[in-house]
């Protein structure tokens, strides 16, 4: 669906994207993660042919975003990170304009989406709040039923209720076989809807895979509560103590837990928790490690 090959974009002396390799498969929901300024929006604008790559290439739906603009854009729908609605157009007019420029939309579905997102389309663009402008862009994009949805932090400004509606819509799109490329830094959202994620930092991809892959490759967190003398866990490979308080030991473990359990044999353990890291922890670790 999307193939990115050593894609690089410089703005003057700033390197926004540095030899990015990425693949998004047909029918999957791909989460594109990264902090502010990592290059997420730059990547998306390159995929849409709004920017010209400095080097490297990207193919979307087998097409070149720079050369095959119309053929590609008929099959892609886009929600910008911040949709600046035309101030003089009403919601209805904006949806009509974008629909016609796209080359046709499912009007019935659009009416349904307006209802589901609970948007008053009779207002002018300038009267909409940020969240409502975002709904407008989402409705315009979803109603195209395009093969590929490119969403750049689409839920910024949406309330939790609408966030749920958004997740439902993404789920339905996937059910219909549409591919979704979703950039976000809302990790719970990515965790809830994405099949695979790519993590971007300072213009480079630091990791990609399914959430499970990323978790397995990563360290687990151990939390041991005990009474009596503290256990001696020194010399265990891959173990790193995070925090050692009064009767509580928290550490990170890479690899098998077996040596830890054996080393605890003499300790009176009152509670033992071992859990996989949340996406948030993964995310923070990637950035902290590199920091």
């Amino acid at each position: 669906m999307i193939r990115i090959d050593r894609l690089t974009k410089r703005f003057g002396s700033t390197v926004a994207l540095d030899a990015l390799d990425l693949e998004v498969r047909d029918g999957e929901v791909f989460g594109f993660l990264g902090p502010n300024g990592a290059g997420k929006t730059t990547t998306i604008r390159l995929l849409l042919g709004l920017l010209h790559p400095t080097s490297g290439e990207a193919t979307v739906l087998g097409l070149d975003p720079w050369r095959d603009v119309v053929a590609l854009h008929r099959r892609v729908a886009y929600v910008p990170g911040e949709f600046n609605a035309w101030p003089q157009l009403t919601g209805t007019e904006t949806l009509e304009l974008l629909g016609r420029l796209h080359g046709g939309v499912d009007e019935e579905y659009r009416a349904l989406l307006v209802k589901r997102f609970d948007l008053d389309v009779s207002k002018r663009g300038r009267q909409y709040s940020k969240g409502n402008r975002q709904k407008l862009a989402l409705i315009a994009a979803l109603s195209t039923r395009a093969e590929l949805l490119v969403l750049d932090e689409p839920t910024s400004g949406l309330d939790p209720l609408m966030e749920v509606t958004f997740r439902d819509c993404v789920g339905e799109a996937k059910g219909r076989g549409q591919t979704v490329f979703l950039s976000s830094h809302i990790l719970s959202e990515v965790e809830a809807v994405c099949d695979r994620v790519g993590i971007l930092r300072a213009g480079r991809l630091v990791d990609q895979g399914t959430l499970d892959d990323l978790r397995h490759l990563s360290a687990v967190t151990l939390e041991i509560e005990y009474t009596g003398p503290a256990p001696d866990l020194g010399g265990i490979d891959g173990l790193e103590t995070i925090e050692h308080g009064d009767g509580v030991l928290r550490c990170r473990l890479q690899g098998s837990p077996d040596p830890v359990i054996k080393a605890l044999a003499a300790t009176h353990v009152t509670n033992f928790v071992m859990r996989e890291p949340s996406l948030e922890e993964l995310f923070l670790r990637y950035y902290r490690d590199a920091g």
Partner: protein
Amino acid sequence: MPADRRPARAVVRLVRKQVSRGAYAWASIAFLTVYATAKGYTATYPDVNGRQKIAALVQRNPAFQAINGVARRLDTPGGYVTWRVGGVLMVIVAAWAAVATTRVLRGEEDLGRADTVRAGAVTGPQVEAATLMALAGAVLLVTYLVFAGLLAARLAVAGSALLAAAIGLSGLLFVAVAAVASELFAPRRRATQVAATALGVCFAIRVVADGTRGLTWLRWCTPLGWAEETHPFTGNVLWPLLLLAVLTAALAGVALGLQRRRDVGAGAFADRPAHSRLVLLGSPARFAVRSELSSVAVWSASVGAYAVLVGLLAKDFSSFVSTSRGFQDVAARLATATLTRPVGFLALIFTFFAPPIALMGVFQVGAARTEEADGHAEVVLATAVTRSRWLLGRVAVGAGAVVVTSLVAGLLAWTGTALKGGGVELGSMMRASLNMLPAALLFLALAVATFGLRPRLTVAVGAGAVAATYLLQLIGALVKAPTWVLDISPFHHLAAVPIAPANTTAATVMMTVAAVLVAVGVVAFNRRDVAGL
């Protein structure tokens, strides 16, 4: 606790930054205009005889005073400059001041930036007062350069100061008018419309007062008339300035009072209710028509109103020239047109319609740039619209606007002559209209090329080129510059159609260059990144 003045000073600095570019540009144009007009007067009318003739013609004929304002003692340089450019500069400075004011007052609120400023340690009225102060500073700069320009042309100090002050106070008055409009109306477009309407009404009353016999008392009904009653150079009456100052202060006070009472972002009058109309949304070009219709209508109406007046004056002016030998020489030097017939006068005048029409074309391309900078183009270009189609659609609409405005000018100028029984054919005036097109479209094309290559400079380069060629002609004629210098200006190649045949060679060259420039713009736009601000 002593009041902390730093936040207010920061606001002054911010606004100064926002308006300084326009202030410097207008101040330079104002300086050169008054200087060149004064110098041009002594060059054109070197002796008393010629001066008395032009004075007699204009002063006896109110129609000549309608646009430019009341004419007094045109046999003196001061009197002539006041008539020729004083009234026009008052309106131009007032219009610029009003637009700048709604931009920094209402425009900043529309964009939500005012919230950030108001979240600082300042009250609303303090922000407003600081903003008005910075705007006043910008108007003062223009005023000072008008004064300097008049002095540089060796006009009397007192008269120069008075004329500059009258122009400056007109500007300040419309800062205050626009401030009140910004308090009452949202969004910015509406506030600007209201302020512009106020200026239009003041101007229209002055036009009637100065342009109609026996209605001079009407001058007291408009602030622009008060400014005229100062009689710069010819009588030097100071107290009408006081009227202007009092009204300005009162309106500024009203604006500050209204500011205290309202929410940030809100106007006193609610936005008109919206009704969705689904026409003209089907393509980028159709949408451009929809977006630009009102602004093109205003341009056409303004150019058209001037054309009517020119038409009305054509007969009187040509009969003056045919009886005035000194002026005939001048006319012969200015252009090859013979001005002794109404159609000759119109032919010459129409070459001066080209710069404003060219400017309108540049602003049409500027509107495309604004669409891009606001992030609207990005959304459109992410749909099944190619960049070429988007840009060419907007260029076509801009070119169409240029053609329509030119034809409106020709039609209305003909209407003016017909009302006076001037015996000019409609077909001739249409040809005069079409004659302007290649030069006007050339500037539009220059803006398109700039849009492709250096989008942020689209309007600066386009409008700058129009202004530069206008000044080149103004000053070039004055210093009797060699022909090749004057030839740089596309406007210099306009033949005086309909009395002279159109310069088809020049027209062909200009249209070819324009086509190349548009092609460069489209190709460059296709190659560059879609860019924000």
